[in-house]
């Protein structure tokens, strides 16, 4: 049985374009234009993954409300925000409400498909045992590529998919500087460098919360960031 994806997007052309791509990948796609319509459908049956726009017609914050309601219905269903709004505040609010990823509409459709696939892979991998090649150990940091999960000294660190790939790209080559553009490529996301900066800030905060030194990701001004080799 194919996986069911719900797209909540008020712009029909975009909704259909996204739906076509995902259908081509073999997913069953349901499109909704408004929050009440989507919520009613979610109450009937939960989707396997939800892609939400923030502004829904006359409801500029409708996506956030919907995310909160969906998270109340199911704590595990993957939620991706796909929106034209790329302000830091929107990103932070979206992720705080329990979304798994926050993508801007600049993202190309192939990349979107890759994200969706990655999220499904993580959901699947939650039950299975990780293989050695999927694991990356750098000091106290442990990355599981299959599950997209991160641990610091066995303490789990909740990262979004974007954040995960940034950490992965840095930690794979400790001491090597990755530029912002490279990081954007690694994370399969197209945002401007200032967004990368805020991503890095959030990662540092999350790692620090898990007990790591926030200096483990070092800023190399004018160039980019690197994983501090000594840690």
């Amino acid at each position, binding site marked *: 049985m194919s996986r069911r994806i719900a797209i909540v997007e008020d712009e029909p052309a975009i909704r259909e374009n996204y739906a076509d791509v995902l259908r081509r990948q073999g997913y069953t796609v349901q499109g909704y234009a408004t929050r009440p319509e989507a919520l009613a459908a979610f109450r009937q049956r939960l989707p396997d993954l939800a892609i939400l726009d923030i502004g829904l017609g006359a409801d500029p914050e409708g996506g956030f409300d919907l995310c909160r309601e969906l998270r109340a219905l199911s704590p595990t269903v993957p939620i991706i925000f796909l929106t034209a709004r790329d302000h830091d505040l929107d990103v932070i609010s979206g992720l705080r409400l329990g979304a798994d990823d926050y993508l801007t509409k600049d993202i190309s459709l192939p990349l979107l498909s890759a994200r969706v696939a990655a999220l499904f892979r993580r959901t699947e991998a939650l039950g299975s045992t990780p293989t050695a090649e999927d694991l990356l150990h750098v000091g106290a940091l442990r990355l599981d590529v299959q599950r997209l999960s991160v641990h610091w000294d066995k303490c789990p660190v909740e990262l979004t998919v974007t954040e995960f790939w940034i950490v992965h790209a840095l930690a794979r080559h400790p001491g090597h500087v990755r530029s912002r553009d490279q990081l954007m490529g690694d994370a399969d996301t197209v945002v401007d460098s200032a967004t990368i900066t805020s991503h890095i800030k959030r990662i540092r905060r999350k790692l620090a919360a898990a007990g790591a030194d926030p200096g483990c990701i070092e800023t190399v001004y004018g*160039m980019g960031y690197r994983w501090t080799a000594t840690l």
Partner: protein
Amino acid sequence: MTRPRLGLRTKLLLVALALLAIPWVGYRYVRAMEGFLRQGQEATLMGTARAVATVLDDRPKLMAPQVDLLGALREDRDLYAYPLHNPIQLDGYDEDWSEYLGRAITYGADHRLSGTAPAGGPDAFSFRNLVGIRGNYLYALFLVKDPHIVYRAPNSLRLDQSDHLIIALQDPQGAFHRYLLTTRAPGWVNAYAVTDADPSGADAQPEVRIQGEWQEAPGGYTIELRMPLAMVGNKLAFAIADVDNPVTRKVREVIGTAGTRRLADLGTVMTPSPRIQAILHGLGRANARLWVVNRQGRVMALTGSLRPPDDETLSADTGDDPGLLSGLQQLIYSLILRQPSEDFDDTLAGASRLQGADVRAALAGRPAIRWRHTPDGRAAILSAAYPIHDGDAVAGAVVAEQTGNAILTVRNRAMESLFNLTLVVFVAATLALLAFASRLSTRIRRLRNDTEQAIGSDGRVRSTAVSGRRAGDELGDLARGVGGMLQRLAEYTRYLEGMSGKLSHELRTPLVVVKSSLDNLEQTTLPEEARVYTTRARDGLQRLNAILTRLSEATRLEQALQQAERENFDLAALVSGCVAGYRDAYPGRPLEARLPDGAVTIAGAPDLVAQLLDKLVANAMDFSPAERPVVVSLERGTREVVLGVENEGPPLPEQMSGQLFESLVSVRSGGNGEPHLGLGLYIVRLIAQFHGGDVAAANRQDGNGVVFRVRLPMS
């Protein structure tokens, strides 16, 4: 042309000068009042004169006896007996007469009755004469100038062979009498009655009623004598005979007031009439003087004085010691205003004859008024003359005199109070105007400052708060108007600033439609020639996307600035790291860094500073010739650090230098494919301002390049 700048305060004070009209009007008023008072005083005085004249009208006996109806009056021939105030001691000295000495009449060569001029010249022999009345006596004083005094020979009976005085008079009964008076030595003397039969007086009988004292004086001698008034009628003459040769004892010269030989030759003597005096006394008024004159202007009676009684003068002078302020005030008044003075020189007092224009007019039958100043100019005297009628003829005149001091006092008092009042009003009005003008100009100045500061140098509305908006007057309206204007301007600016962000956001959705459609299109099987067009569409899409990203960059940065956290970091390390990065980013371009030793710590957001440097270096690289170096420098001052980025290349256009850091301003001339919206330097400025610094662009000294300098305060 520069016009002198006049502030509101100055202008209002100039307008306040119109207040000076108040004292002028007041002055005119006081002068008018003074005129009325003068008229009143004139009328009153004239009334007095007329009343007295009415009393004396048609009383020929009172006025007539002494009136000489024949011939004109002559001062020297027709003697006037002054009423003497002081007792006269017959001692041969003139001290008792000092009050009247100025009126003594001098008799010299012009009054020679017989004989020849003296050897020492015509002036060598002369005498001065005064006649007065006190009690029932007529007094006479002779001051004789005679270098050779010849006394009566001790053994001689003759009276006319020495210096002697001749007295000729008509008694009240009309009989003619002649007396000689001489002496053997200075001392007490008596007269001798002589007759035509015995002119030498050898047999003369002494007339003891005429007695006096003969004393020598420097350059001559003095005779002081008296005789009972009962002896004297209307006619009288005196003569002095001079004998110079003690051997021959011939009379050399005789000088007299009038001829003494015959009754017809005698002059008259005028004595004030006691009856008129008594009448006048009853009519006398305080501070006024009343004269009665006969047809010749001779004074027949006088009463009163121009000066107030002594006690009144005293009371005017006494008073509490004035304070410094009022003392100063009085000093000023005494300088400006003529003060009434009781200490004036009244030459007329005791005059024997009045000859003013008013008196002449009255004697001609017309009442007249005259104002005159005393010779010393200290007082003005008003005199009113009114004729005394005897039937149709004019028998004399009454002259009433009064000083203008009362009016002057009133006038001065009015002037003083006017001056005080004006001063108070003037000062009060000036102060009020000054306060009002100050308040007004302060409010306007505050409004101007607020208006000037409301819009910053970058053209943004910094504050719409304008002081004085609650005021209800026109200035309040102005402040409200300016406030409203600023409010609308701020809204419009905000709208314009949000425009690019909003625009990019709104454009993004159709862009996504195009993009996702293209993505879908590429996944379908397309003919090869169609691929070319999708590729072109994708290129165009990318450029559109880049434009939108840059458009929203500034807006996003402004939001980022609001959330940015400050930390202390080493600027030198940041710059050196960035420069290393630029060497990688711009391979083959020379890049020079001049950094100080040691750390340069500033407080701020390192990411933002790096972004600032990115923009400046990218800008410099764009303008610099490829082979010439871009110089990044860091200079540490005492309180601030200057980050400089310098490149060779075309200088800045003059008119652009101020706007270079504004949004959407670009000096780039040609497009090289990369879109430029002129937001880079605007972002630089935003970041510099966030750190409390500023940025400036200047042409290099050699004119062959541009330097951007960012000043940041050190922590």
